[in-house]
């Protein structure tokens, strides 16, 4: 499945994870392997929908932590890679294969894990575990027990998985997670309620898992517009704020203390699923519903206005850099049979994830966009013939690094968007670029290796992607002094 991680580098050592949850520690100067570890995965991982990739590791307390695609948390000795503990967290065989495709979050002395769910016939869970021992301390169910929110039995397979890493705020000992879409993705006839806490930011006490507050971004979602993307924390004008991108392409600016809305802005005008979202109340205005057995054009597509690859914020420019997706898809909900032993079919109410098409106005399908994170004002953008699916990096030296699915890696001037440098890495990028220093020299580390569902689903609209070779490579560049 290519390489989908954002590596972590600490004191000149790279901690990296690739397909099959294989972990390696590498010398940051030479790339030489220091140690490696590969878990023996449950054979059921060959059948489940989400496997065998991971988006990264977490490091803390002298340990490297991973969440596995068979629903375990595993801790490794940071120096040697030897296993310290492991704990089975998800009921893997009985939750339609719910598992971890992202790393946990080091939250003080706790470790928190968010599982997959939305496209699985299950409920999403966030787990709190003692980092030192792996002992499970708490479990938060992202599906609220409320018949008004979930009529009848609809909450039973409500989805809402927090499948990307959350953000820990040490100041308030709070872990913020974005939750995923409700199930079935495209059919809401049996769940006519707001479907809490799907498509929401939830603020949890890191020690107890108690819910401090929530802000739902997309109530009663039928377009698969999850909220699991990164939560950014800011201090601005005396306020503690959160900035968070929902998959729809709308960014939510919230009060960190209570989730109150400060502003909501769209990163692109390629959107028709609503006329707008009220920037003061969050109300969806002019929803486009999906009739059964009929195709409806929805913008943005199920890849969203941006995919799970994160943006990057530069405090010197005050700009947030994101790979914006400007294409659409036809969605067609259908009746779907339930089969508890079928781990491979998504609980989506559809036969596929939509027929992708270019934006109605024919514009280029992607852009690297530089925006004010609070107002959305765009400073510059760089149009792309193939949209970007890599996590962006921006540096203190005034650069922005971005890679595209064809393998082109570019460096931009962070203030102006001028292209300064380009390099062909040989395979597409679906991962996070990072920067680190060893012996006073700055390195840029680029995972290159096309894979993920993007590799499978994009070629009908972008046939050039069929030629991109598979890979799983880390490439290190040195920035001249």
């Amino acid at each position, binding site marked *: 499945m290519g390489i989908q991680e954002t590596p972590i580098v600490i004191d000149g050592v790279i901690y990296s994870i690739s397909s099959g949850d294989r972990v390696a520690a590498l010398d940051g100067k030479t790339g030489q392997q220091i140690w490696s570890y590969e878990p023996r995965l449950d054979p059921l991982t060959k059948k489940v929908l989400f496997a065998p990739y991971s988006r990264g590791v977490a490091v803390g307390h002298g340990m490297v932590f991973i969440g596995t695609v068979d629903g375990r948390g595993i801790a490794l000795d940071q120096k040697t890679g030897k296993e310290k503990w492991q704990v089975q967290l998800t009921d893997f065989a009985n939750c339609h294969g719910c598992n971890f495709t992202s790393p946990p979050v080091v939250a003080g002395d706790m470790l928190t894990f968010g599982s997959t769910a939305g496209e699985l016939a299950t409920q999403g869970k966030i787990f709190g575990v003692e980092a030192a021992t792996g002992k499970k301390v708490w479990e938060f169910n992202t599906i609220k027990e409320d018949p008004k929110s979930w009529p009848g039995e609809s909450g039973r397979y409500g989805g809402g998985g927090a499948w990307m890493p959350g953000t820990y705020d040490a100041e308030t000992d709070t872990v913020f997670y974005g939750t995923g879409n409700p199930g079935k993705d495209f059919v809401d006839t049996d769940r006519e309620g707001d479907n809490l806490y799907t498509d929401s930011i939830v603020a949890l006490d890191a020690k107890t898992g108690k819910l401090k507050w929530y802000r739902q971004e997309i109530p009663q979602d039928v377009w698969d517009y999850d909220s699991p993307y990164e939560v950014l924390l800011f201090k601005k004008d005396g306020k503690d704020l959160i900035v968070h991108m929902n998959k729809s392409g709308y960014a939510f600016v919230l009060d960190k203390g209570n989730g109150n809305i400060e502003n909501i802005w769209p990163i692109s005008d390629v959107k028709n699923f609503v006329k707008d979202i009220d920037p003061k109340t969050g109300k969806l205005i002019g929803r486009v519903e999906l009739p059964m057995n009929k195709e409806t054009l929805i913008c943005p597509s199920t890849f969203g206005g941006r995919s799970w690859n994160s943006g990057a914020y530069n405090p010197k420019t005050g700009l947030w850099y994101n790979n914006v997706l400007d294409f659409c898809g036809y969605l067609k909900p259908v009746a779907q049979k339930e089969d508890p032993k079928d*781990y491979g079919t998504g609980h989506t109410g559809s036969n596929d994830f939509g027929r992708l098409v270019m934006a109605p106005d024919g514009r280029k399908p992607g852009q690297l966009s530089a925006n004010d994170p609070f107002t959305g004002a765009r400073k510059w953008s760089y149009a792309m013939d193939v949209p970007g699916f890599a996590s962006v990096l921006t540096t203190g030296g005034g650069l922005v690094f971005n890679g595209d699915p064809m393998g082109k890696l570019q460096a931009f001037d962070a203030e102006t968007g001028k292209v300064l440098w380009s390099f062909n890495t040989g395979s597409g990028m679906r991962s996070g670029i990072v920067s680190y220093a060893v012996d006073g020299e700055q390195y840029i580390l680029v995972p290159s290796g096309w894979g993920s569902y993007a590799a499978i689903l*994009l070629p009908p609209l972008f046939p050039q992607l069929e030629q991109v070779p598979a890979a799983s490579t880390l490439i290190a560049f040195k920035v001249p002094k």
Partner: protein
Amino acid sequence: MRLIAALAGAALVLAMAIDKLHADEMPNLRDPKVIAAGHELFLEKQCAHCHGEDGKGGVNLARRTLDAKGAFTSIAEGREKNGIRMPAWREVLTDKEIWEATAYVLSISQAGQSTN
């Protein structure tokens, strides 16, 4: 002796593989009813997710020259190639159903188009 044992072992493995492949009745893969049943499964199990409703999706089947044994095995056992993974459907689908899906897949591939 060692060579005989090795040959015997290989023959046993091959026999078991053939048994596994023909574990259930293999239908007429050109029968329109079998192909139609396979089409239903193809949609129900979201094969269109990767292969497209007409086989011309991200993992294009329409351009491929497939054979029955290869298609059956891929569906039953799953496969990983070029950074892309297909789940295994054995024990989720019966062998009869896997044959039906095989029939549909063959009908939309080059093999199916060349007999039309």
